């Protein structure tokens, strides 16, 4: 299978997950599309090496994280990429109020907490994998995850009056 076929096959399977990860990371579906496009362009350029890696998904995931960081640090690049994309509407369908509250609470989390909770509980990474991806300590992953989950529980409790109990991070 040649490079283009191989890469295209991988992207067709993973693009949705990468897009949703980027949405959760940056809080903006339009920016998320920029992030995914930037990350996939990098991934394509590195495909001969990336495709031989033991963990292509990890490689792609870290590329998304770093593309997100690039977008945050260089807003003028984001404008350039958006100009290339043209007008393509994206949508968020959150049919119930609790999901809308949770989405707002997630966007209000400090970015560090948001990243760890997405990697740990959306992508299902271990504490060690999360620490390695983000370049932070295991202890920081645990504390930020705990703080993030507590904040999200409080947000839901404030809206719906549910009882809040402190769960233990698995």
């Amino acid at each position: 299978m040649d490079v283009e076929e191989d890469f295209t096959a991988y992207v067709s399977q993973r693009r949705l997950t990468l897009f949703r990860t980027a949405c959760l990371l940056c809080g903006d579906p339009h920016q998320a599309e920029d992030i995914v496009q930037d990350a996939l362009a990098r991934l394509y350029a590195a495909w001969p090496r990336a495709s031989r890696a033991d963990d292509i998904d990890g490689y792609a995931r870290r590329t998304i994280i770093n593309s997100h960081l690039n977008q945050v640090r260089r807003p003028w690049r984001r404008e350039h990429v958006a100009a290339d994309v043209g007008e393509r509407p994206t949508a968020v369908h959150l049919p119930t109020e609790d999901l809308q509250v949770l989405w707002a609470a997630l966007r209000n989390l400090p970015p560090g907490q948001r990243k760890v909770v997405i990697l740990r509980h959306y992508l299902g990474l271990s504490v060690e994998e999360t620490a390695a991806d983000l370049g932070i300590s295991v202890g920081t992953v645990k504390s930020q995850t705990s703080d993030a989950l507590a904040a999200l529980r409080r947000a839901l409790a404030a809206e719906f009056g549910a009882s809040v109990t402190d769960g233990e991070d698995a």
Partner: protein
Amino acid sequence: MSSDETDLIERLHAVARGFEMPAAPPGDDVHRGLQRVRRTRALVAGAAAAAVVVVLGVSAALGGQDSAGSRGMEPAERPGLVVGAVPVWYDARGLHRGDVVEQTPVDIVQPERAVTEDSVSPMQGVLALVRSGAVYLDPATGDVWFHPWGGHPRVVGHDSQAGPGGDPNGDTAVWFDAGLGKLVVYDTAAGRVISRTPEYESVGVLSGDHWPAGNGFLQVSEERVVWAAGGTIYSHDVRTRRTSTIQDAPASPYLMDVHDQVDVFRGNEGGASVLVLSVPGRAEERYRGFEPRARLSPSGTHLLSVEGTETRHAGAILDTRTGELWRLPNAYPWIAWSYGEIALVDIEHALLACDATRRTCRSLPAERPFLLPTN
């Protein structure tokens, strides 16, 4: 995991499912990837063409414009004082080199604008070392200053967003001039710009656990400049002005630091981070229990990192020649290298200077907030 937490996580997944991905025209991702590959090749070719111009002598005339007298900067004063293996840091009292304190013309720390891993800029401050002085960023203006030890500091660059890097063993300082979109290589001894080269991607801002706010310059020498930007690692040959990509996008193992003869990678074994040491003539060495960042000393003979285990979350220094490990005091640290084999270790209530060759630490009279070098 509690049922509340399970329910919360299920809702998180439901939120994610609510995002509709826009339809991507077939081949778009490949097309963008090809564009990126072509842009990088064109950039390298352009830098090579610039090198040819230098050989033909055209830039000899431009070189006059690159002296320290251009762009409103003061004429160079030839630096002469080279200090030994002393700790260097900056605090409210000034720029410390061992027991000597020198005043800086601008505040190089802005604690009220301290950077976190999530902030863009401005930065708290960036301080780097060269053989005969320090180079630092003025966070308020983006100016780069060269501070010769015992001499008169002067502005040598502008529009630096991530701050300068320097060679603690030599005279080369580097920074990215955002206004020009170029990597600037500067000779602090001669007081002149060696080159200004357009680059596709400037050095990244770095911050996070244990390491002071700084930038991604991994190595600065009179031969080459190596920097990290968003997971990609670039190497610039100072003589030919060619830049190559030595690691494109995050990879495992991921190159964390380089020295002339030593490379340090971050690897992964069963989900746990490992340090991988690569030294010519020796088998690859892997060290477990370390967190995923580490920096080599100016000589490359020692590696500074943080152990993260069940019983220790503290600094450690590895002798890259022997594999011997020296464990630093068991407290959460912020760490950096100074000159020689002197590591600066900020723990709780003290800033320590730890000599990796003697395996001794002493407390420094530092006042918070302070800035450690980013070398």
